[in-house]
């Protein structure tokens, strides 16, 4: 009689594994299709809190030091460099500005290489964390100008991920957040409501997960 190795048990194990994998794949598929996310419904609301402005672009976030920015813009305006809606350098992390009677000062983010990446929020001693921690939830809220362009075929706008991450972080610190999408055609602008009814910056998301 030929002395053949019995493959019965091996076949059994392999076929069982295939069966388990098929079941796992089907369950995975069904589970993924039925997953329901309850998004927080944002609602803009009036507030006495003052906005602290940020720009989110290319997965980076920049705190806008408005005192410095407006000082630099005023210097450019007095030197004549800002006349005729000319775009001028603001000497602030690659930001360029433009002065318009209706829009106030518009900000163009051309070079973002010096801006902190949003992943730095995971690091304890990062400058980005310090900037966000500096917001006093009793007096201030965070307002983000978020770039919505996705030129490289990405599924999200270039600032969306950074904004979501910062929003989540600030929510944990009871800080309210608001935002608006911006791009090179409709840049971020800061102005007073007396200029235009569009010059309003309101928080949409409650800090601390009150409206889950």
């Amino acid at each position, binding site marked *: *009689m*030929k002395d*053949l190795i019995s*493959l*019965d048990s*091996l*076949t059994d194990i*392999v*076929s069982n*594994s*295939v069966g388990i*994998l*098929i079941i*796992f*794949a089907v369950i*995975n598929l069904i589970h*993924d299709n039925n997953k329901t*996310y309850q*998004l927080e*419904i*944002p*609602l*803009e*609301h009036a507030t006495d809190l003052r906005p602290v402005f940020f720009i989110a672009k290319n997965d980076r976030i920049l705190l806008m030091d408005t005192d410095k920015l407006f000082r630099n813009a005023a210097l450019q305006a007095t030197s004549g460099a800002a006349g005729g809606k000319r775009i001028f350098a603001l000497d602030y992390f690659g930001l360029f500005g433009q002065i318009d009677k209706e829009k106030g000062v518009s900000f163009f983010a051309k070079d973002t290489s010096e801006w902190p990446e949003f992943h730095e929020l995971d690091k304890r001693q990062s400058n980005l964390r310090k900037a966000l921690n500096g917001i006093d939830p009793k007096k201030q809220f965070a307002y983000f100008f*978020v770039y*919505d*362009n*996705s030129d490289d075929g*990405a*599924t*999200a*706008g270039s600032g*969306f991920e950074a*904004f*979501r991450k910062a929003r989540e972080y600030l929510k944990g610190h009871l800080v309210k957040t608001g*935002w*608006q*999408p*911006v*791009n090179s*055609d*409709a840049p971020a602008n800061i102005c007073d409501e007396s200029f*235009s*009814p*569009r010059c309003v910056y309101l928080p*949409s998301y409650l800090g601390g997960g009150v*409206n889950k």
Partner: protein
Amino acid sequence: MAMSRATKAKRYALDQKLEVSLFPFLSIFLCVMGVLSFINVLSSFSAPQKIELTAQLEQGYKVAYQIFNLPDGIISLPPVKHLDQLKAAVDDADKETIADIKRRREWAINKLKRHSGSIMNAATEPDVDDIVEVLHDIRVINEIALKSNYLYEEFLLFGIYPNGGQAYQKIRDIMSFTQDARTISVGLEPLDSNWTLNLKKGESK
């Protein structure tokens, strides 16, 4: 010792059984297992998650009039689910107004449903007159609900897709010069391009 015919036949049958090769069978199984494992690993790591957004969105008594902003324009998704209940709670004059608004909204939804191909390709340029009408309808409905002491309020919820900011800014420009928009609450949420709209979701709830 001579073997009986029956024992010989049994031995022959056993020998035949042992000679069956299981290797082709095993190799097919191993291939299937490998392919399945590969697909599983690939789908869980590299494939972008597909998320479907519901047609009806509400939070308590606040109901969203959703406007999805895409690079090619907007998709408006008006709420109709609670309008019949609201109609039942108001006086006759307002019943007609609500019925008229509901009819127009259902027509808009049906037009979206009839769209062939992906719903995300149904975006149209925001028309000033349409936006003004939408704002007016929301204001009228909210005022009727308030007058009838019926707990119902509609608000505008903008879903901003990548490169969809242009359409959003256009609508906000219209809103800033329209009296009707003053009393309407607004919300906005960034959406990824793989978050698609499902008109059937949330309908039956």
